[in-house]
């Protein structure tokens, strides 16, 4: 065993319990994601009154799943400020892109938006 590897394993011992706790959390997130997928499929067969409502429900569930993946698997719930800064800019420009997209709906003739 090399010196650095031995150092790493010695270093790893105190972390074992800490990471076991994390591993349990990852498993709960995994189960939640599996459940979320089944809910997404099930909800798509339930008529919520309009196609728009079904889209809203599906995107809401997808948003929840995305939060779990980004928050726990990508560790965004406990990241450094700089990452939040980068993602803040991204969220701003993404929201702007979507706002422009929705704004352009005004250019469609009345009663032509059917999907």
């Amino acid at each position, binding site marked *: 065993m090399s010196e650095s590897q031995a150092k790493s394993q010695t270093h790893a*011992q105190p972390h074992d319990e800490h990471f076991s706790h994390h591993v349990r959390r*990852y498993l709960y997130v*995994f189960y939640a994601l599996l459940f979320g997928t089944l809910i997404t499929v099930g909800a798509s067969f339930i008529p919520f009154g309009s196609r728009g409502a079904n*889209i809203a429900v599906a995107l809401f569930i*997808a948003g929840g799943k995305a939060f779990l993946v980004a928050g726990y698997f990508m560790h965004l719930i406990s990241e450094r400020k700089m990452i939040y800064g980068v993602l803040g800019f991204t969220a701003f*420009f993404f929201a702007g892109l979507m706002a422009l997209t929705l704004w352009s709906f005004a250019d469609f003739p009345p009663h032509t*938006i059917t999907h």
Partner: protein
Amino acid sequence: MEIPYTTEVRKDTGLYNAKVGIWLFLASEVMLFGALFSSYILLRVGAVEWPYGWLNIPLGTANTLVLITSSITTVMAWASLKMGNFGRFKMYHAITLCCALTFLGIKSYEYHDKFIHYQVDLKDGRIVDGHMEENNKDEIVILGRYAKNMHDVLDLHERKDLAKPAPIKIERSDIAYMENYGPWHNTYTAIYFTLTGLHALHVIGGAIVIFYLWAFGGKMWKSDPERFTNRVEISGLFWHFVDLVWIFLFPVLYLL
């Protein structure tokens, strides 16, 4: 010359450099897929009719479950290294790679299904829609149904009360035009292939990096385990992003 900040944290960012790099890259990826989602919305809203039920929901669901599974094995591989267990890292990432191949296999099957699916416009005005069974010099055989017009073609897929597709023999001289369901077929197939194709390229890219770390990472693990663990974390962040994109692609393309 040694590359700085591969393991030690920079004072100004509070992070090692690769982590800053991957998050900047992922930010650009968000805008790339965001632009495509925006295109999808505009194409769909602007279309006179939009097909429903053209994709296989059980296969799409299976692929979603496969990617979620690969996400947990990726994070478990990283956690294994943090706990100093290289053997477990190898096992978890072997599962990740199997998941990646399974995802691509299912996607290839779905693509193949679209490429053998034909819309055949007959000279008498009717349309035959279904999968190509035989393609001979004088005739073709389609396993499908007749439709009166394009609306019926879209409706064929939405209606569940239709009879099972039957083989339809068509003389080539009776065909006015025929085309498969490739990206060129209509707006829907164009955006479907663009979005899923770009996503599949990301899966391939991520899988190649994970395979490299899995197959050749042992040397660096022995010489510089912390740096290797950071590399696995970076590749994992990319992989989770690929999963995250699919979480939105699946309902948008398959279910709605």
